[in-house]
């Protein structure tokens, strides 16, 4: 007997939740308990009175599972709204990364030149290192990090993506 695997889709979910203790554990735990995947997760307070947070989750799974994830999230009492940005249509996905590169000579010059091409900002520098701040679609960050790997990459920190619908309306 072999375990069967099914076709997967990638979806970006924007979730507004009550900013109460345990909510992140509830959501993350829901994914583990039901065998769903989390590719990235971001969360931050988005309200004036600190009542509401927005969580962005990138997940993948077969279409029926994505629909279940949506419904299961909506079942949680502190969840106000779940928007499947991938389902809703054109949307923007952005991610921020901090990338530390160490080196001297040509590598250092090349790293700075590539950072300029990728519109990465230098947010810290020593005579032997840079920290670049880069924002963009996840693929852009992937390719920037891949280039830096050859030029003395020390470490990478990524936020995971946040997403938003294009156009005038909110999700």
């Amino acid at each position: 007997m072999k375990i069967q695997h099914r076709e997967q889709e990638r979806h970006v979910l924007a979730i507004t939740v009550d900013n109460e203790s345990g909510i992140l554990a509830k959501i993350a735990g829901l994914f583990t308990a039901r065998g769903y995947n989390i590719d990235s997760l971001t969360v931050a307070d988005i309200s004036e009175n600190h009542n509401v947070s927005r969580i962005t989750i990138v997940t993948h799974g077969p279409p029926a599972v994505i629909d279940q994830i949506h419904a299961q999230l909506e079942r949680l009492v502190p969840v106000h709204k779940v928007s499947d940005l991938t389902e809703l249509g054109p949307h923007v996905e952005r991610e921020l990364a901090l990338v530390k590169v160490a080196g001297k000579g040509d590598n250092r010059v090349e790293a700075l030149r590539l950072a300029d091409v990728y519109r990465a900002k230098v947010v810290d520098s020593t005579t032997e290192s840079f920290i670049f701040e880069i924002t963009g679609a996840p693929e852009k960050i992937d390719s920037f990090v891949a280039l830096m790997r050859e030029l003395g990459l020390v470490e990478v920190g990524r936020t995971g993506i946040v997403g938003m619908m294009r156009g005038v309306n909110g999700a």
Partner: protein
Amino acid sequence: MTERSGADILMDTLVEQGVEVVFGYPGGAVLPIYDALFNDNRIRHILVRHEAGAAHAAEGYARSTGKPGVVLVTSGPGATNAVTGIADAFMDSIPMVVLTGQVATAMIGTDAFQEADTVGITRHCTKHNYLVKDPADLAATINEAFKIATTGRPGPVVIDIPKDVQVASAPANQTEPRSRFNPPTTGAPEAIAQAVAMLAAAEAPVLYTGGGIINSGPEASELLRELQDLCGAPLTSTLMGLGAFPAQNKAWLGMLGMHGTYEANMAMNRADLIISVGARFDDRVTGRIEDFAPNAKKIHIDIDRSSINKTVQVDLPIIGDCTLVLRQMIDEWKSSDASAQNLSEWYARIDGWRARNSLAYPQSEEEIMPQLAIERLFELTKQYDPIITTEVGQHQMWAAQHFHFFAPNKWLTSGGLGTMGYGLPAAIGAQLGNPEALVIDVAGEASIQMNIQELGTASQYRLPVKVFILNNEYMGMVRQWQELTYESRYSNSYSDSLPDFVKLAEAYGWKGIVIENLDDLDAGIQAMIDHDGPVIVDCRVAKLANCLPMFRSGAPHTEMIMYGDDTQREVTAEAKASV
């Protein structure tokens, strides 16, 4: 402004919520609450013998009365012992509020004595849970907990209350009501119209009903009968839904699913329209998904959106409360002057399947067949309109098959989680909620031992519950699966070293009756009914009887094994891996 302690706020809020009974067990972290209970006559506290008993008793109370069950336990082991009952209530959508003590807020996270992360442990087996850190939040939290537990799809809610929050005081009347939880209640009108049109056009419809009808309240059962009367469709029910539709009706197909009737499963398989009302296409109902009702359009009425398309893809979802949606459908049926197709040919086909007599079992002159014991129990008790609880296993399925139900809230069984040890505490809870009713726990000799300590609870509160044990000296369902799947290698399924149940009963101040011979069966049951007090009946039944019909786990729902079929064939690895 006057101030009250957290424990007093708790008591007052429970009273405001209409709570009459609390099932609990004291301990260090709930002593302030127990002290508040001491001189308070507004709430009756039922002292169980184990916290699992408290949770199941609260479930039995809730299922039989429709009111939320309330549990009060201490921190650490008190809470963890209650978890099985909480998970059980979650799976079967039973309204329950569980109050757990917690170590003082300053001690949380220090591995203090009797500390457990109750909120963490119960996170995924509750509808919602709370850790209350300020007595000023208690009333609003409790009020919201009751709303969440009882509205929408019901379920358990845990409120974890640190000991210092019980002692500290807060201003009275500081309760700002919250209103964030508002599940949908009525179905979309266009979906209702479409459903009625589909029902009127169907030539082979089946109504497939579940526990949602029971949870929605007795009116849902009445409306279900009315809708069935209008459309004439045959009706089957899940284990959880038994009683919503009267078993003597000619449209009644019996229970469906793994141990359902042949006619119920065949009708589902050959139907052109299935209307699911408050059921969830559980794997015990569908069998192999690919073979489940392949030609039927499926309408799914459910209060919980996540039940839609979870296992079976449906054609028309209707999100709403069963009572309201059924009334909408009845109104639409009447106002659109709908009329049903002639279903006589459909009923003729159903009669053909009925003729297989799938519940038949071999008769015995020497032994008491367990099915016969249930039939006699039904015949001799039906005039009393009893409430039946069960444990889990063969006896549970035999009771579902051979006992018949005519009204909701009379059948209390652990369906989703399948918790052995459920029946006795559930019977205690049901008896408290229905002091005049005849309450019988149909049990197996193995299951009953899982919460046997609750005999003492029934003795203490003079609850005349009856425990009817089908004693076959095996964990019968495990043995049956071993016979079917593992060539009768009965690994650890023999109930060795059984207690003398009569002596055990007497030790707790109960009456004990043993039934060993066929000739004593009726007299034994009658003696149980006639005794004004709790009774254990140890009914010795045929040891190796199988619970049939049955389709194997993961098999098509039409491939039913019946008495006389070979139960000893080879099984594939896929079948062995299917639960």
